[in-house]
C-alpha cells in the first residue's frame, strides 16, 4: 500500500493532481486542462464486468468527444497488463480502446481519489468515476460496487447535463434527457423569489427557452 494518505475528492474543489504511466505514455492531469474529463477506475484487467464497461465506454467515446469530454481509465495493474487486455478486447470483441488507461501500480492516484475500498477489496480499486470540468474541478462522482457494471448511458447523460447546465446557467430536473427543458436555479433571496413569473411556484420554474 502506498504511503499517500487516502482522500476523497469533494465536489466543487480542484481534483488531486497526478502524473502517472499510461497506455499512451506518461500523463498528467494538467494534460487534460481545457476539456471535460471522465476519470474512472476499474478493479482489474481481464475481468468480465470491466471488459463490458470498456466496450460500452468505447462505444460512447465519440459522443463524449463531441461534448469536449475525454475518457481516462485507471486500475492497479501494470501498463503491460493494460496493453495485453486492450489488445485482447480488440481481437476478441472487435472494439479498439482509444482512450488512455493509467497504470496505477503504486496506488498513488487511487489513494488520492478515494478509489480504494478496503471493505470490498484490499488489492483492487472499486468502480469510481469522476467528472472534471475544463478547469479540473470535480463536478460529479459516481461510486459503484465491484459486482455491478456502470450504466454508461447514464455517464453520457450526466456529462451532457453538466455541460448543458454549465452553458445555460440552469439546472437539470430528475430524469432529464438532452433536448428537454431545464429548470431555473432556485432564487436565493426574497427579492429573487418575488420576481418569478406569476402562476408558477417560486422555487420550481421550468425554463421556457433553451
Amino acid at each position: 500500500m502506498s504511503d499517500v494518505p487516502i482522500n476523497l475528492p469533494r465536489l466543487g474543489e480542484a481534483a488531486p493532481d497526478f502524473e502517472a504511466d499510461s497506455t499512451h505514455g506518461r500523463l498528467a492531469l494538467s494534460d487534460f486542462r481545457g476539456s471535460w474529463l471522465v476519470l474512472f477506475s476499474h478493479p482489474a484487467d481481464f475481468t468480465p464486468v470491466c471488459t463490458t464497461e470498456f466496450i460500452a465506454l468505447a462505444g460512447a467515446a465519440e459522443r463524449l468527444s463531441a461534448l469536449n469530454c475525454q475518457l481516462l481509465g485507471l486500475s492497479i495493474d501494470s501498463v503491460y497488463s493494460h496493453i495485453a487486455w486492450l489488445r485482447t478486447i480488440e481481437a476478441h470483441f472487435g472494439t479498439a480502446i482509444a482512450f488512455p488507461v493509467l497504470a496505477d501500480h503504486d496506488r498513488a492516484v487511487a489513494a488520492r481519489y478515494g478509489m480504494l475500498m478496503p471493505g470490498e477489496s484490499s488489492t483492487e480499486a472499486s468502480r469510481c468515476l469522476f467528472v472534471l470540468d475544463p478547469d479540473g474541478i470535480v463536478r460529479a462522482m459516481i461510486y459503484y460496487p465491484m459486482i455491478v457494471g456502470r450504466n454508461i448511458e447514464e455517464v453520457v447523460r450526466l456529462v451532457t447535463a453538466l455541460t448543458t447546465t454549465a452553458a445555460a446557467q440552469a439546472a437539470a430536473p430528475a430524469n432529464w434527457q438532452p433536448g428537454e427543458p431545464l429548470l431555473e436555479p432556485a432564487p436565493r433571496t426574497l427579492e429573487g423569489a418575488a420576481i418569478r413569473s406569476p402562476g408558477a411556484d417560486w422555487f420550481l420554474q421550468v425554463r421556457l427557452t433553451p
Partner: protein
Amino acid sequence: MPCLNPDGTLAQTAHALLTALETAAGTAPALAAQTGMPLWQVRSSLRELRGHDLVEVAMPGAESNDALHRLTATGREVLDLSRRLDG
C-alpha cells in the same frame, strides 16, 4: 505515447510533432490542430520530448505546458536521422 520506440527510433507521434515544429515554433493547442492529435497527447509528448532535449520552450522562463515550443539542435538532428533510417 512514449516518444521513443524500444529500438530507439522515434515513435510516430514524436515524429509528427518534430516535423510540425521543423519550420516554425508552436504551442500545444496549435500543434494539436496541425497534427490532428488530441491536445492531452500533444502536451504529454511535448513534456517527454523536452525531457529528451529534443524540443525546448522558445521563451526561457515560460515553462507552461502550452508555451511556444521549438526544435532543439538535437531534435533536428534526430529528425534528420529518423528520415534517413526510414529511407
